[in-house]
């Protein structure tokens, strides 16, 4: 996908968003005129800007360079997948166990090959989080299956 196509598609997506916002504002009850007025104002602004973006892209001339979405696909995919898995599993595995596992696996997958430093860094980071967040601020991070043990 090149920049011209991207801008046109982006403009169309923005127009769809603006129309959706405007239609939603029309359905707001009469008792909320301020809520509807501001949303309509924003929707029209987005419509005008996106329309202008489409026109600008449409008449753009010259060589169109393809957009590079991801520079290192392997590292990017691993990071995204592991981060999402980390967030999903946190409620079950618990924050500390999940974070330790995530830290070690992701760093290793990103080709960090100093196991002692990696373990030390992970433990220090989690100790710092425990001290500041859990002990000082009393943030009840999820403990998951370890809840009964703690």
């Amino acid at each position: 996908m090149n920049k011209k196509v991207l801008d046109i598609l982006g403009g169309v997506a923005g127009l769809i968003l603006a129309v959706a916002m405007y239609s939603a504002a029309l359905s707001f009850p009469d008792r909320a005129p301020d809520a509807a007025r501001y949303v309509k104002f924003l929707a029209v602004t987005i419509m005008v800007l996106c329309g202008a973006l489409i026109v600008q892209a449409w008449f753009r001339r010259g060589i169109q360079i393809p957009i590079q979405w991801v520079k290192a696909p392997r590292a990017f995919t691993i990071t995204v997948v592991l981060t999402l898995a980390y967030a999903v599993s946190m409620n079950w595995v618990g924050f500390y166990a999940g974070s330790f596992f995530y830290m070690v696996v992701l760093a290793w997958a990103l080709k960090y090959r100093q196991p002692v430093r990696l373990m030390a860094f992970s433990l220090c980071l989690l100790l710092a989080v425990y001290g500041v967040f859990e002990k000082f601020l009393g943030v009840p991070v999820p403990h998951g299956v370890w809840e009964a043990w703690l």
Partner: protein
Amino acid sequence: MIEMLTGALGALMRPEVLLATVAGTAGGIIIGAIPGLTATMAVALLIPVTFGMDPILGLALMGGVYSGGMYGGAISSILLSTPGTPAAAATAFDGYPMTRKGQGGVAIAVATVASFWGGVISTLALLLVAPWLAHVALRFGPPEYFLLAVLGLTSIVTLTSGNLLKGLISGAIGLAIATVGMDPIGGYLRFTAGQIDLYEGVSFMPALIGLFSISQILELTSETHIVELGADLSTLKNRKLPSGLAPTIARGGLLGTVVGILPGAGATIAAFISYNFAKQLSKDPNSFGHGNPKGVAASESANNGCVGGSLVPLLTLGIPGNSVAAALMGGLMIHNLIPGPELFTRYGTVTYAFILSLFVANIAFLVLGLYFAPFFARVATASNALLIPGIAILSVVGSYAIQNSLFDVWLMLAFGLGGYFLHRAGFSLGAVVLGLILGPIAELGFGQSLAISGGSAAIFFQRPICLILWGLVVLLLLPAFIKRKPA
């Protein structure tokens, strides 16, 4: 006043008070540097701790946390492009590019000195002209607040380095996201999809962490280190400040003080407006966003300028300028110090000792910041394979800690992924953040103004302060359009 100041100075010089101020400042720096932890949180937690303390000791501790917390946000913003506090978001625009060039130490030193002077300017204003400034702030009504938001939004033009239309759309997207939740006038629920977590709107901190931190670590996956290849690493230790920063710092400090006085406006807006001014008044505006130290100085002097500014309406009128000031109000009241004129007469010694302790806090973070700058800067030389999961874990726990909610973690990740692709597509994340910050202020000011005027937009052009603000908007926009090269 001189008598009370002398008494206050004597009380402040007690070793335990000095120690409490320095300890509070150091703690504040750590809390400010961790994304998701705010000075408000720390001050609120300290209130019960200070209950049994001598009032001067307790207030000095909380003042130190406030000053240190405001400064600490710059450290992670500069080194990792992960603002520790929302007020440090604008610092990342030039601070992080400086780190990439191997100038992280210099950037932190600039931020430290700028924060120091910003803090000193605002504390001087608090000490000398607080009652007068508080009455000026009371003349700000809904139309003025709306125009202040418009003034902030003009920064979009400055923040956009490529296609201006995309910058404006980014800002509009931020404003649109800010409409989620209860409308600020009538309380009608909009775009929440029945999700209770969205009733109060999109939580700002997770959005900020996602847009700046997660999108940034996804960018880092293609590199081995934050510091670019070929960068001169010897500059990590170099603490020599670039010349010509004084006017930028002075302007930022004054601007921060003025904006800080306005209840609800806050340090984030001040930092963006100051950054905008610095860029527009610069002879080389194109260097902003690519590691210009003036960008760091402008935003940092302004956000620390808000510290003293936000205490002006608090101490004189009992109106807290922002959330930290609101928490501090609790700290004052727990010691039976009711904000108002009596604070400067009957309880003058305690109040002036508290104000003077802010100077001590500024000196403390100046010394700590300058001494530790090269050590902090070494973070940028660590392997990205370690930094990426480390930053992600801090982002997750930081987002979670705001409301103890996993929903905020998902919100943060969604903003991170969305922000990454928006950035790649040429949209401005800074403009999205600006829209998110200014959306609620703009909507409230807009709605209330029209309610006052019976629907007439003339209200935005009739009041003297409104006309001054319009003048500033034009002043900031004109040069941007004249200098702008075609995209």
